[in-house]
């Protein structure tokens, strides 16, 4: 079936420039070639039905019925050879180490600002910089415990970091569920090809969470804090809680007394020591942050400051997600680790630098412009695909609030064979590995490969027509 696959342009994951199958795809290509079309169709239907029945779904905001949708899943796996993964692992570990050092620094001595490596203005003006937490010590000095860095590949196949998601990155439940589905559909392939397992993620996550338990608590109670059943990632929250064997709680299940956090159970109050919170800073405690928040726990921050409860991720990591800070990550790596960055950034222009601003305004139709503090594909301009009116709108926005915008050249993401209406065509993909910082940094081999299912589209977000693939990291290189 894959024999008719054509590489149109750009970097293809499976086929090289001469249309030959790359070494690490060859075993898969051969085994897949043995499938007949009806066999493949049967597997596809079985997998779709399994996802629907198990409720592997996400909610779409703005849908009045609160309808749950399946995240479309493509059966062709993205394959990464061992040496490439080893490189990614080194790069991601370096990056998360630098980010954690950076967060510790700006919430303490602010050396990097005093030494002029990053202009002070950018940090102090950041929307998610929590000045109230300056000089507050977080357990084990870890700020980002769970990170979901987005990686893309350019036209030459170089891996680049697109963004660091250091707040509440989601998607890991799909990594685990996609793998289960693939194992059921293609058991013999896993034997023949040698794919590294991802199943121990929940245990690793629980280990990282227990590692930051408040001092003196030998057997900490860990919970997942969710905004509730209406949140788009609710499935993932319950999934992770179930896999870790811990309670999933909402804000109203918790209360604070004498600076300690308890959950309301049928057996009375039970102390809680570590909270894996899937609620943003702004909503977590109405007495400190947004007063109108119904999702949070009044007094939680008070308990957190008293050191009686630990939060993952820590308060204030949102600044690392600021797209202006992203620009400075290579400098952070150099400053804190005295190393060259292993993984590069996408070239970035800061609208608040005069020269850059001039360039951005004059070249809007060539650039991708992003708001510094938005995610999920919102607040973004894709210059080459935008209408005149959209471009004009962004020109005004950039001039009015330069601190809030950055611009990047349009990167033609790598593409991957994807099943589109019974034929296989190239579709653009990215990769979100999940990085855990606990006693050591651990990364599950693989991650969420998102695919833009619309032809030519570069937007992989699930809310905007994206799907996903299983990601296979091989034991070997072919």
């Amino acid at each position: 079936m894959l024999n008719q696959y054509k590489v149109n342009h750009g970097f293809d994951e499976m086929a090289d420039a001469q249309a030959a199958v790359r070494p690490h795809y060859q075993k898969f290509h051969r085994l897949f070639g043995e499938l007949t079309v009806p066999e493949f169709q049967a597997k596809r239907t079985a997998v779709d039905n399994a996802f629907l029945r198990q409720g592997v779904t996400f909610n779409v905001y703005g849908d009045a019925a609160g309808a749950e949708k399946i995240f479309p899943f493509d059966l062709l796996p993205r394959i990464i050879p061992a040496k490439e993964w080893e490189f990614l692992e080194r790069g991601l570990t370096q990056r998360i180490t630098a980010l954690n050092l950076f967060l510790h620094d700006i919430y303490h001595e602010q050396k990097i600002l005093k030494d002029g490596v990053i202009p002070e203005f950018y940090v102090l003006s950041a929307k998610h910089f929590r000045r109230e937490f300056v000089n507050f010590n977080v357990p084990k000095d870890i700020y980002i415990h769970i990170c979901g860095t987005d990686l893309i590949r350019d036209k030459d196949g170089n891996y680049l970091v697109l963004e660091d998601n250091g707040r509440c990155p989601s998607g890991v439940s799909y990594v685990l569920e996609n793998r289960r589905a693939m194992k059921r559909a293609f058991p013999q392939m896993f034997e023949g090809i040698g794919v590294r397992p991802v199943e121990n993620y929940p245990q690793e996550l629980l280990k990282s969470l227990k590692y930051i338990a408040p001092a003196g608590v030998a057997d900490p109670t860990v919970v997942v804090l969710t905004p509730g059943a209406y949140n788009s990632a609710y499935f993932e929250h319950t999934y992770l809680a179930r896999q870790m064997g811990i309670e999933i709680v909402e804000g109203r299940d918790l209360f604070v007394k004498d600076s300690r956090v308890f959950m309301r159970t049928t057996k009375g109050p039970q102390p809680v020591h570590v909270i894996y919170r899937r609620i943003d800073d702004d909503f977590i405690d109405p007495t400190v942050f947004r007063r109108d928040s119904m999702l949070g726990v009044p007094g939680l921050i008070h308990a957190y400051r008293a050191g009686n409860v630990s939060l993952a991720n820590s308060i204030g990591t949102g600044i690392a997600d600021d797209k202006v800070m992203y620009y400075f990550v290579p400098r952070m790596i150099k400053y804190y680790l005295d190393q060259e960055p292993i993984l590069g950034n996408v070239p970035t222009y800061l609208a608040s630098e005069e020269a850059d601003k001039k360039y951005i305004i004059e070249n809007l139709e060539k650039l991708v412009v992003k708001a510094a503090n938005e995610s999920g594909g919102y607040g973004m301009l894709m210059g080459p695909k935008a209408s005149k009116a959209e471009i004009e709108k962004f020109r005004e926005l950039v001039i009015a609030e330069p601190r809030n915008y950055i611009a990047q050249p349009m990167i033609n993401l790598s593409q991957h064979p994807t099943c589109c209406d019974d034929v296989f065509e190239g579709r653009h993909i990215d990769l979100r590995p999940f990085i855990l910082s606990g006693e050591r940094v651990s990364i599950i081999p693989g991650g969420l490969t998102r695919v833009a299912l619309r032809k030519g589209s570069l937007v992989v977000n699930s809310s905007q027509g994206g799907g996903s693939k299983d990601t296979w990291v091989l034991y070997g290189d072919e």
Partner: protein
Amino acid sequence: MLSRVANSLYWMSRYIERAENIARIVDVNLQLLLDMRSLDEKQLIAYWKPIVIATGDEEAFFKAHPHATGAAVTEFLVFDKENPNSLIQSICQARENARMVRDQITLELWEELNRLYLFVRSPQAREVWRRSATEFFQEVKSSSLHIIGIINATLIHNEGWWFVQAGQFLERADKTTRILDVRHESLPERGLPQSISPDEALGWSAVLRSCSAWDAYKSINSADVHPRRVAEFLLLSDHFPRSVRFCVNELNRALRRISGVAEGRFSNDAEKLTGRFLAELQFSSIEEIFDVGLHKYLDDAQLKLINIGDALFRAYIFQSFDNPDEFHMVQQEEQQQQLKSLIIHR
């Protein structure tokens, strides 16, 4: 387990039971009406009023529907979205509670409850009802029984399951007392009626049918319908699964499985009140109940069940031990301190 989860399971179960009872009572009484000579408006009101009282809010009904026709009663008790106790609203509430604990219940349960929810809200539901009201009610009843079967056969019988049981039997006991009370106007205030007319006999058999008790009653008492026997059966039967005694016994069992406290003792008000009520039902005769007056007895029983529900809520769901206001103030003070020190620091 989390109090919120227990609460949702408990209410999911109560609302399913409530919907099924509404379906039975409206269905039976619509049919009974077919057997009666045409009634004038006053008689119609007399006929439907106790049923409206048994299942909902009398005042709201007569405000919205001055003419107590079968159609108006059905509209109010079944389809009215403004009536929080209507059949449709009960199913919505059951489904909403299930959705809140979707991860704690089985796929089978969710699918069936969701199917029922989608059915009653669909335009087809109205069509089915217009074609044959009985068919519509049959759909609701059989779905409810299906759900109870799924709960027993697919849910783990853990603490949460016992909360489901508690909700189901508390609601059922309450509804049985209300259905039994529907014909109280035909009874003397105290004591037993001397004789009953054939029409009244029909009314009492409708009471039995509204509790799915007709077959069970006949097998014990033959087809001889008398209020004394009907009341005895629906209140004191040890084996009929909708009698008040049976329900309170099951409720008692559920509460004890939740707390682990042995028979003859109690650890909270819910257990105390339930045990007391159960003992009373076990050691009462129907003559004594009619001596008090059936209507008064049922009124008291409903109050007892309400108190048990409140006590259950206080024991397991809402424990008042926090004082958010105090914290709020300490918190704000602290934040301001922090801000000040920061300004000095910089």
